[in-house]
């Protein structure tokens, strides 16, 4: 008898496993993600108002400064080893905001520091953020083309 199970045994086993496997508690995960993600956005909005009223920033300058501050705190909390704990609780809630992007760049940079600055830290810095940048650029090009074509009509 071959040790690789026949296809129908496979299917029966896979069906059995998926019926008894522990499942992610979706409602709770969604709620936590909403709570933490929303809170990060509230902080962003708060910063925006503060910068507006205290420093009279506006437009691109304002948006850029808010992003910069959030990125700084995302990176800082990653360095302190706090962000991954937030992530365990919040899931997508702390991955989607710009702080999550900072986390995804800083975490591998820290991890691969032991393999040197160039081939370790610098080369591995974008292993997780890389796909986000690639698809971000591609979709911005696509949106640009759609805008251009819509403008011609």
């Amino acid at each position, binding site marked *: 008898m071959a*040790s690789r199970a026949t296809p129908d045994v496979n299917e029966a086993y896979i069906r059995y496993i998926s019926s008894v496997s522990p499942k992610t508690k979706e409602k709770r995960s969604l709620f936590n993600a909403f709570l933490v993600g929303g809170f990060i956005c509230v902080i962003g909005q708060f910063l925006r108002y503060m910068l507006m009223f205290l420093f009279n920033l506006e437009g691109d300058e304002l948006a850029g400064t808010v992003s910069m501050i959030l990125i700084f705190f995302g990176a800082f909390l990653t*360095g302190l080893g706090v962000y991954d704990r937030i992530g365990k609780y919040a899931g997508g809630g702390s991955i989607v905001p710009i702080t999550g992007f900072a986390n995804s760049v800083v975490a591998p940079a820290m991890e691969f520091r032991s393999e040197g600055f160039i081939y370790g830290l610098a080369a591995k810095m974008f292993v*997780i953020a890389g796909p986000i940048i690639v698809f971000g650029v591609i979709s911005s090009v696509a949106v640009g083309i759609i805008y251009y074509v819509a403008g011609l009509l």
Partner: protein
Amino acid sequence: MGKHTAFFHNRPTIAATYSVAGKKEGDGPIGKVFDYVFEDEYFGEKTFEKAECKMLSTAINGGISSCGCGKSDIDAIVSGDLLNQIVSASFAARDYNIPYIGIYNACSTMSEGLAIAAALTDGGYMSRVAVATSSHFSTAERQYRYPLELGSVRPPQSQWTVTGAGCAIVSAGGKGPAITAATFGKVVDYGITDANNMGAAMAPAAMDTLITHFRETGRTPSYYDLIVTGDLGAFGSRVLKHITGENGYDISFNHVDCGEIIYNIDEDEYQGGSGAGCSAIVFNSYIYRKLKDREINRVLFLATGALLSTITTQQGESIPCISHAVAVENEAL
């Protein structure tokens, strides 16, 4: 002799064992039985890889000294770990002037090593062989998953890689629990592709080896006081009991899984421990002591391993798994 089972007639014994564990393991339900628990996850080294290597050599040194012999009395080191090119084992062996047999069967390496050592000593080719395996949470995470500081969520079917190393000294003749038989496992793949669900992937391999062992030895599950699997975890253990039960072998009364008993599940270890170090530290401390104290006299130890790599997982391949079994028995009084 069965087709897959070797019987050892000269009673190669497990003369001594030693276990080194990390803090989380030391804080677990059986943490007190480990010979050495270290607090700092770097173990005083600069990188996690070096820490794992040091852990392994600490275990080997501990095994040798608790056996009451010196390095020169050891004829070979049979060792393996989870890292690419089994670097922890090879780098640890660099510091010994002893022949080194590097082996890899993922998390089933401990029982595989015991079977090899038993064959070498039973056959009269060697008189003392050190078997050691290790795993480290932080080296395994960076090889198999994500960076430690990344804010990702572990799924509820996942397990936590054990930080620890265990060593057993197998000796020709002498006193102590003896390895009386070994059943070498086949690679079994039931088509599970979820790399987070190791328990489900490995359970069929454990079942295959178990049933082969029972058929070829003519034994039943009740022959053993304890059937010890390596790192199926809580969920995988449930699956194993279910599928072996369906095949006519009830192991629900004497089965224990090293991964299931190693942690207090209070963070996100979920189904328990895993890794080559998991079965190594539990078998070489908790189980071995119970054998030594004759609280139990017959143990079937089968560690299970998932033979995947990150590349095969990304290519959508299913997970081939394996399990080797060794029967460890006390001499009748």
